[in-house]
């Protein structure tokens, strides 16, 4: 599994370094070395560690578990189940949103979803579930069912400057074909494991990125207006995309092109 994603990433790296279509399967030794080095030593591991520090000083696992209404030892299992309906939220939320709830619950100022702190803490909290399989349940309750339906319609709606939808590039019939020189990833495949591998370090951006932010980047590239983080539609997209990779193992931080 790892091998597959390495190959994809190597191909992508080759493209990045300005190789033309004919040369696209080759890459410089320097690029190869960089990718291998990063696999062993993911630069985002440091951000996850910083997330741990922040989380421990701001919230702590005990308070977090209590806010979610679960036992501390059940946190990994619970985290693997996100996005999900959470009682004190009254709706389906993402992990990042539960951090906002927890900050308020312990009387701390609530930081923005966009903030470095929330991104790092999200990565840390999700890493508590490393090794677990994503277990989102889109039929768990009417809230989840509604969000799954909404997510699918947002995913399939053509809009924006070029009239494209997420589905234009991520439907099953175009997977593996090339947009420019980039192979279109199967969001549900084991080697992509989209839901289990974000937040991930994006080598092209030299920073750690969350899944919702990654989806905003696709919107921007394809001239779709960016759906704001935390909005019902964005959470619904995360539900829909996460469900595509249900059962894949969580490995945070991921490493992406």
């Amino acid at each position, binding site marked *: 599994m790892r091998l597959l994603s390495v190959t994809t990433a190597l191909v992508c790296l080759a493209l990045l370094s300005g190789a033309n279509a004919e040369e696209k399967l080759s890459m410089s030794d320097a690029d190869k070395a960089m990718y291998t080095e990063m696999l062993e030593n993911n630069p985002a591991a440091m951000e996850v560690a910083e997330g741990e520090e922040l989380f421990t000083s701001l919230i702590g696992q005990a308070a977090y578990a209590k806010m979610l209404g679960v036992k501390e030892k059940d946190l990994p299992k619970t985290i693997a189940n996100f996005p999900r309906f959470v009682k004190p939220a009254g709706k389906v939320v993402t992990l990042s*949103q539960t951090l906002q709830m927890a900050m308020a619950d312990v009387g701390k100022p609530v930081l923005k979803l966009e903030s470095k702190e929330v991104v790092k803490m999200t990565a840390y909290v999700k890493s508590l579930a490393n090794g677990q399989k994503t277990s989102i349940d889109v039929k768990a309750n009417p809230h989840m069912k509604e969000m799954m339906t909404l997510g699918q319609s947002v995913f399939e709606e053509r809009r*924006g400057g070029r009239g494209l939808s997420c589905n234009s590039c991520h439907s099953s019939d*175009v997977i593996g074909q090339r947009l420019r020189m980039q192979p279109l990833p199967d969001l549900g495949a084991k080697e992509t494991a989209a839901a289990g591998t974000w937040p991930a370090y994006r080598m092209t951006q030299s920073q750690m990125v969350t899944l919702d932010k990654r989806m905003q980047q696709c919107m921007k590239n394809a001239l779709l*207006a960016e759906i704001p983080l*935390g909005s019902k539609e964005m959470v619904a997209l995360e539900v829909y995309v996460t469900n595509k990779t249900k059962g894949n193992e969580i490995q945070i931080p991921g490493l992406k092109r």
Partner: protein
Amino acid sequence: MRKVILLAIAAFLNAADLSQVIESPDATAILKKDALSAAKAVTMIEGCISNEPAVIARGKYIFHNLNGKDAKENPPEGLTRLLPDGKEKQMGNCVACHNIEGAKGYGNIGPDLSNYKALYMDSGARNGQFVYQKIADPRVDNAKTHMTVNLTNGLFNEREVCDLASYVMATKK
């Protein structure tokens, strides 16, 4: 006594309700503004398809570039890198999905458009109006198409769609 219980319940509800602190902006207006109008059949204007070098040059430029800002070469006569309001002008980026003569780093989501004139036009399989409609709004001919919409959403004007159609249909090299 009753008052105490009510107060206790209120306090409990307050403590448990964290819905108001979650960042949850309303995206409805953004999505509404971004919506695409229904598929629309269009007829090409008089003199749309042309062999004029200037027309072909514009079509070629729109076909191979993503936008005016990132384009390596300067645009040919009749095209600009920026729009009057100072924003970058979007190009077609058709090469992201289609191979064609001289394409660099092309994708293959759409059919190969190389040798289009001989294969599709001279054989009678296609005509100018078909190509024009396909580029203007491909949903008319295929509701589930993965291709971009280019005219009916205002990305390009009629002349630019004619430039693209002329380029696709022209004999090259």
